């Protein structure tokens, strides 16, 4: 399993019927210090994770097991939402603080599409 942060989501109207109704999220892999590492990827989700949350995801055939008995064609799945990361037991920082409001919320573009780019 690997640490990651949800940075967006993917809509696909034409897809495998086995993927119908499943959420596809864009995930940025993280180091234990919650720094970005590696390339971003698309994960299916079995936990209800939302944008900005720290999660952990699983890779390989195991990614299909949360959806048993259906076996959708996916190879990465988010299997947990991380509450806190306890590094060396020195500090216990919440990974997803409950009242985390963005300091500078992005201005809404009237009539425009919301860009899912990472801030």
């Amino acid at each position, binding site marked *: *399993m*690997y*640490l990651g942060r949800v940075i967006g989501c993917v809509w696909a109207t034409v897809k495998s019927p086995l993927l119908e109704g499943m959420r596809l999220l864009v995930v940025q*892999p993280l*180091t*234990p210090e919650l720094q970005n*590492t*590696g390339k971003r990827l698309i994960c299916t989700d*079995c*936990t*209800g*994770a939302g944008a900005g949350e720290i999660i*952990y995801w*699983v*890779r*390989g*055939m*195991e*990614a299909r*097991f*949360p959806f*048993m008995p259906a076996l959708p064609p996916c190879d990465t*799945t988010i*299997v*947990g*939402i*991380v*509450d*806190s*990361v*306890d*590094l*060396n*037991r020195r500090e216990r920082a919440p990974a997803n603080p409950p009242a985390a409001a963005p300091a500078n919320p992005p201005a809404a573009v009237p009539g425009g599409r919301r860009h899912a780019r990472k801030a």
Partner: protein
Amino acid sequence: MLIARVVGELVATQKHPSHEGRKLLLVQPLNLDGSDRGDAVVALDAVDAGVGDRVLLTTEGFSAMTSVGRRQSPIDMAVIGFIDQIELLPDVLL
């Protein structure tokens, strides 16, 4: 299997039911000389390891699932042993 060091623990409330009741560890895979090998990963604990322990890490799904006793569950890494000592031939280059 890889040699790894436990560097931290994760707390997750919302997770797949098969992960409940097992510790989630952050483990850093190591080279033979003890240096870091790639990025740290999240693994389920099958042997009650703690932070700082040098452990054996399996990175294959079937072994990981069976070692924590949860068949057909989304687990691809597990800590399956403690390493006490590694002995190498004297001419092995690290």
